């Protein structure tokens, strides 16, 4: 009698639904998954080790490249850990700017998640709709930091610079005549805050547009309802955080439970799911769009009313103003020291965590008193989620593996680091 073996399928690392370089070894019985074995490490870049050989500030840029769809949130976790060790706090305006950009980043991340999740399940159009909105938010990034993706905008002690008063505008070209350009520039005629506010007003109707394509769509529901359901207890045991945990019905959000920056002064709700399946996690994230939008609106209002410094005045940590350097010897020395040696951080260790779009993003930092960290450990939410892959897809079909990868919102930059 012939021996019956399972069908082993190498899913990735070159696979359109692998979200980067996930290699998943699937054992199949027909199309039903018996075992899923995720292999990680194909995007390992040694970020944590690199950070040990550089002054603190020079590693901020590496944090952008961890989870490369929610850049500023990664910076935030890292910067917060340094601030904790230094025992300093950013000025209030900087805190509001950080919160605003954290939420913009959350929308950026969730747009990417929604687009790819829908594309994986086959709804191609949504992907392009999401990228249309991402483009506007990328412009916001660019206006404030000069870079569309890897912003390196947060610094220990505040943010790199204040919000600009003007937005870059489109020019007339072969493709766009003066009338088109005038229309495209309408929202860009004011300051950055005007542009963000315009976006905030537009965005709710756009979310409705996404939802008309998916939320009540029978096919979408058939593909997500009841797929990879995780009980609240099990979700906690597996170390889930963020929307993955809230989708299972656990009301856990660091913005509410351990408020950092100014989240305790802002008004927002935490959506939670009921069944813990892909559909609930989808609904939770869709509601997070709206809540982030609310937070951004509140931040914009506060930032309009309260000008002020966005960086600490302490020149041992923050670089001095450019004008001061021209005439002041001390400022010049501070600048030279900061940009060559950096600053030394008192001996000790600290763990700072933020509510990253994907879950709890934490940075554990050990300092031996030098100008470089002794050790940096990044707690990436995606790693814990990916570890549950086997449990979540067992007994489902190949098509559901794709839904699960989408619902986990996996990005390999942070998992492999």
């Amino acid at each position, binding site marked *: 009698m012939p021996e019956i073996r399972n069908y082993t*399928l190498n899913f990735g690392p070159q696979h359109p639904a692998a979200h980067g370089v996930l290699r998943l070894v699937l054992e199949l019985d027909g199309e039903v998954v018996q075992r899923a074995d995720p292999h990680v490490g194909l995007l390992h870049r040694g970020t944590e080790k690199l950070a040990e050989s550089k002054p603190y500030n020079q590693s901020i840029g590496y944090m952008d490249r961890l989870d490369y769809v929610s850049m500023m949130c990664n910076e935030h976790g890292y910067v917060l850990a340094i601030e904790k060790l230094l025992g300093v706090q950013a000025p209030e305006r900087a805190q509001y700017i950080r919160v605003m950009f954290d939420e913009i980043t959350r929308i950026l991340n969730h747009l990417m998640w929604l687009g790819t999740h829908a594309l994986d399940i*086959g709804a191609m*159009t949504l992907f*392009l709709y999401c990228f249309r909105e991402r483009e506007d938010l990328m412009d916001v990034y660019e206006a404030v930091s000069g870079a569309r993706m890897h912003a390196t905008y947060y610094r220990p002690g505040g943010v790199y610079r204040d919000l600009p008063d003007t937005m870059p505008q489109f020019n007339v070209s072969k493709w766009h005549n003066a009338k088109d350009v005038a229309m495209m520039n309408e929202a860009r005629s004011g300051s950055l805050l005007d542009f963000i506010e315009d976006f905030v007003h537009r965005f709710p109707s756009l979310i409705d547009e996404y939802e008309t394509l998916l939320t009540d769509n029978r*096919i979408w529901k*058939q*593909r997500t309802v009841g797929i990879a359901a995780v009980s609240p207890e099990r979700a906690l045991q597996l170390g889930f955080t963020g929307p993955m945990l809230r989708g299972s019905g656990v009301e856990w959000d660091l913005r509410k439970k351990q408020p950092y920056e100014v989240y305790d002064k802002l008004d927002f709700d935490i959506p939670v799911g009921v069944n813990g399946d892909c559909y609930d996690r989808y609904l939770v994230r869709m509601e997070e769009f709206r809540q982030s939008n609310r937070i951004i609106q509140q931040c914009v209002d506060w930032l309009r009313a309260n000008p002020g410094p966005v960086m600490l005045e302490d020149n041992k940590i923050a670089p001095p103003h450019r004008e001061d350097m021209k005439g002041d010897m001390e400022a010049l020395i501070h600048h030279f020291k900061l940009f060559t040696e950096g600053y030394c951080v008192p001996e000790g260790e600290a763990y700072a965590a933020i509510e990253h779009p994907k879950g709890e993003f934490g940075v554990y930092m050990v300092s031996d008193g030098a100008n470089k960290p002794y050790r940096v450990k990044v707690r990436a939410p995606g790693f814990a989620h990916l570890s549950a892959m086997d449990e979540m897809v067992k007994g489902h079909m190949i*098509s559901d593996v*794709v839904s699960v990868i989408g619902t986990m919102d996996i990005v390999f930059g942070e998992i492999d680091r």
Partner: protein
Amino acid sequence: MSELFDTVWGWGEFVWSFQIVQIVLGIVALMVPLMLCVAYLTFAERKIIGYMQVRIGPNRVGFFGYKLWGLGQPIADAVKLMFKEIIIPTKANKFLFLMAPVISLATALAAWAVIPLNDFLGIADEVNAGLLFVLAITSLGVYGVIIAGWSSNSKYAFLGAMRSSAQIVAYEIAMGFALVGVLIAAGSLNLREIVEAQQGNLGFLDWFWLPLLPLFVVYFISGVAETNRAPFDVAEGESEIVAGFHVDYSGMAFAVFFLAEYANMILIAALTAIMFAGGWYTPFPAAMVPDGIFGLLIGSGIHWFVIKTAFFLIFFLWFRATFPRYRYDQIMRLGWKVFIPITIVWLLVVAVMVLANVGPWFD
């Protein structure tokens, strides 16, 4: 001069007297426009879906330095694919690997033999079992997919082939039942007679889509499933099994699959137009059609057949831009548990309507 003309004319008459020449010329006259339609259907798809997705689609490739909204794109694609290498995987069954695309395209084109284009055009439209022929030939098309998936000796392709065979069983039956409904309503298996059964004075109300509405919907959806188009494109399953059955194909071998898929789409749209939308008949009531050139335009004619086919084709594209993809067990559930019961019930209704001579269709 006139002698020369007579000689050439004589030769022409001599050649024409062979039936095979007539048949071959007829086939060429149908296939060349059809293949052009296939090429420009790919272009239309990219443009229409492009506009649905807030982008513009191909707009660069034109002719002689003019961009012409990208109209040269299908030609450029065809030329590119022709010059690409056809890679045959080492452990593939070479013969079957190359046969599979041929089977796909041959069946997609062969079905056109019995399609009547208007009240006199068509290659073999006098075949009295035209409907059976169409059903048989389109069912054969799935062998192309299955053989391709099996012979390329790849796990992904094999999964695609398995999915396709499971899906086709579920859908052929529902489709067959829908066609039985048409057969009862028209009282003939000949496609031309089916169209002629839809003639009347009321225009589009005379067509079979109204009395056979559930069958019309089931047939069209089954047709989408049969052509492996979204949301039923599980055999291709781009984001699950990469490209499914044709994952190992390249160059012209791939292009032939591609042509077959689009030729099948046109075929299904044309069949829908013939069986449910009155073929070449005008949608306007007879009283509204005036004499003269204007009357030729809005009166019955081959142009209405083309317009109706194009109308149904747009639905294929629209579905693709709108819906997520089904899981393949869900497709089978839809086929077995929803479509087959609907068609069986409606067959009885149609039979009763025919017996009761319900007007204006069956009197």
